[in-house]
């Protein structure tokens, strides 16, 4: 790839020329393309559902459903920035929730600790494999997902669902969730944009060899990113337990794909680097859930909804890659 990007080897003497106004407008459009798409989708679905999309009940449902995907997206950001992805998240959440729920039956503080720590431990293992074994990150994630999935049934101990105590489910409230989201957003903005670690994640995605030669400890940064996704899985597992009141083999199912989907719909670039931004997680989760809810309200068949999602997904990948290169700074 790099050979091709260096192609216009000539020409750069004019690199100081001022940017035209037309180009400036293009820059704004191209940088905010996912947001523009979201607005168009909201407007369209708002019209075809004659405004019922905006009823307070539906808005509440949308925000409610976005919550975990936004958190999941925040947690994946650091790995995404490196051009990595964690496809073991779904199974990891499932295992953490099941083990956590079983310990919660004995002790609540211990159960919470087990939920968080199990998922984080998987993150540590994934991180070490990622940093040292250098195998394709997709395969690694799929492999781990299969491995853990296979263990879920025995871990359930023959029960279909494992309920958790009322003390825990009583904690659920929209206000808490909004507070959690805002706090997480603040932490992620600071950590991603203003810490050495956040910068290093992007540098690895943009050019690993050059990152190494700039003194970045790539193995450490790679492991850390997976530990963060593991920790995120733990938090998501715990919040799912609080929301649903029980754990089962399907807890967390498809979470990995939905987070990936929402990151892409939010405009994140799969190869990592500066193309991955905090706002991708929010815009993407909103796009995904608004689509799901809006198309449902419109009365669209769920199968056709899948097709629409698939088409949009591919369109977004194509456009983010194409548009990114057209931005002139």
């Amino acid at each position, binding site marked *: 790839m*790099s*050979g091709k*990007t*260096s*192609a*216009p*080897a*000539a*020409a*750069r*003497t*004019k*690199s*100081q*020329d*001022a*940017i*035209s106004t037309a*180009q400036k407008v293009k820059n704004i459009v191209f940088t905010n393309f996912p947001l523009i798409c979201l607005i168009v989708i909201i407007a369209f679905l708002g019209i075809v559902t004659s405004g019922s999309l905006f009823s307070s009940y539906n808005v509440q449902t949308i925000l409610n459903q976005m919550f975990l995907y936004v958190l999941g997206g925040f947690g994946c950001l650091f790995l995404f920035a490196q051009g990595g992805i964690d496809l073991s998240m779904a199974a990891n959440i499932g295992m953490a929730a099941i083990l956590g729920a079983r310990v919660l039956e004995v002790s609540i503080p211990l159960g919470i600790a087990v939920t968080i720590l199990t998922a984080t431990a998987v993150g540590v293992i994934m991180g070490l494999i990622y940093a040292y074994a250098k195998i394709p990150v997709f395969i690694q994630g799929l492999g781990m997902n299969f491995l853990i999935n296979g263990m879920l049934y025995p871990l359930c101990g023959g029960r279909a669902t494992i309920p958790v105590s009322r003390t825990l489910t009583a904690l659920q409230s929209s206000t808490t969730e909004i507070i959690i989201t805002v706090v997480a957003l603040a932490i992620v903005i*600071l950590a991603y944009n*203003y*810490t*050495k670690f956040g*910068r*290093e994640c992007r*540098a690895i995605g*943009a*050019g690993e*060899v*050059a*990152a*190494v*030669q*700039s*003194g*970045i*400890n790539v193995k450490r940064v790679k492991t850390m990113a997976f530990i963060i996704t593991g920790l995120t899985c733990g938090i998501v597992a715990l919040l799912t337990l609080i929301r649903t009141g029980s754990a089962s083999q399907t807890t967390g199912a498809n979470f990995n794909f939905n987070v990936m989907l929402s990151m892409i719909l939010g405009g994140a670039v799969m190869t990592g*680097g*500066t193309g991955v931004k905090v706002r991708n997680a929010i815009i993407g989760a909103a796009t995904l859930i608004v689509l799901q809810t809006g198309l449902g309200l419109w009365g669209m068949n769920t199968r056709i909804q899948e097709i629409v999602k698939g088409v949009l997904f591919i369109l977004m990948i194509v456009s983010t890659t194409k548009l990114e290169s*057209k931005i*002139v*700074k």
Partner: protein
Amino acid sequence: MDKDVILKAEHMYKSFGVTKAVVDFSMELRRGEIHGLIGENGSGKSTFSSMVAGLYKPDSGKMTIDGKEYAPTSTEDAASKRVALVVQEIGTIGSITVAANIFLNKEKQFTNFGMINFAKMQSEARRILDIIGGEHIDPNARTESLNLEDRKLVEIAKAMYCEPEVLIIDETSNALTTRGRRILYQNMRAVRENGGAVLFITHDLNELVQMCDSVTIMRDGVFVTTLEKEDMDIDRMKELMVGRDIADNYYRPDFAPDYQDEVVLKAEDIVSPELHGVSLELHKGEILGIGGLSESGMHELGRILFGVDKADRGTVTVTKSGDHITDPGKAIKNAVGYMSKNRDTEALILNYSIRNNIALPSYDKLRRGGLIHAKEEKELSAKWTEELKVKMRSDEQLCSQLSGGNKQKVVLAKWMGNDSQILIMDCPTRGIDIGVKENIYKLMMQFKREGRSMIMISEELPELLGMSDRVLIMKDGMISHEDMRSPDLTEQKVISHMI
């Protein structure tokens, strides 16, 4: 119309985004000539030759071959009209065999009922390699197992296979040793003798005068002039390229070594697959030149000194702290910087802004209570881009948009921003035009006066002898010779220790 003219390009234009690469450029190539094309980095040479070879489509303009309209849609299309290009970068695929590279996209001729006859392909590759002078290359070898020079020869074989009437060589010779160059020249002459034409792009003006029958000069994408053999004067060409007078001698003016006794960096008995016991000492304020053939081990030595690669045995020590350099992070903590010869992949992140690249090794210094201070980051970048006069619109511009010389200035800015006291420079002026080269030499002298120390690994003897306080010559993974700066240190004298 001159009937000798084979390729005629008229009023060619090409832009990349807002950048005008080639502007109203016209030139003619005659049968039986080797025609040089020179200009500073970013003057549009590569863009023009890429249009001729079918890599880029011109925005406007017209090309003809033997009077017939010529508008190639791809390199294959160009090859079918017997126009071939050997690119500046690596143009072969590493993971397939030499033969597969030579016949890439031309496999059809070897197929029977849809199956490729590999034996036939190999023997054909053998034949063409023998013709071009690559007898030592195995057509069955995986291309990535070859050294850079042999990979270039494979590209030459690929180009020569279509029996080109127009052969374009884009800055290929600086990747080649004396032997490789001889093979390249021999093929260029063969094209000329067969009545074809060669368009030869090079930064080496001596080579140009020696090889070319005429030369065209470009500046800022525009045609400057064409000189015939008898008018090819090096100083005049330099002036025409840069558009102003260039000092005759841009190396340092003094002729005596001048550095302090204090040793700042020490390598002891370094052993690796390429190195067999190398020891050296670098002094404060010294420019230590390391020269040799490209396979002498000097580039590997540079990587080990910075900790990019690990030595099997031996240590690299920063005297001040007593630290051993084991990885780049450790080196950077000890104020050591490294400029890789592979600027685009190792020294810079091309898809990153100038500012981000400059700040990369300095995050520890830019942190205030765990968070990076954005304003200080901006100031750091502003200070050094100004100091080094990086030509840019803003420091948020991507490095991929800069010319080679400007990229190298960003690499320097990156290490100066981190206040490096020891700089290991591997081919610091490779592929850089004269104007910026002069600039870099001046900066080296400034750093020297500031008490910084430099190791300059270079394949160019004039700059090695012109800039170094002390010169080490390497051969077969060992230091074969050491010389102090003096007026009677000549290229002939050191070359004998290289080969």
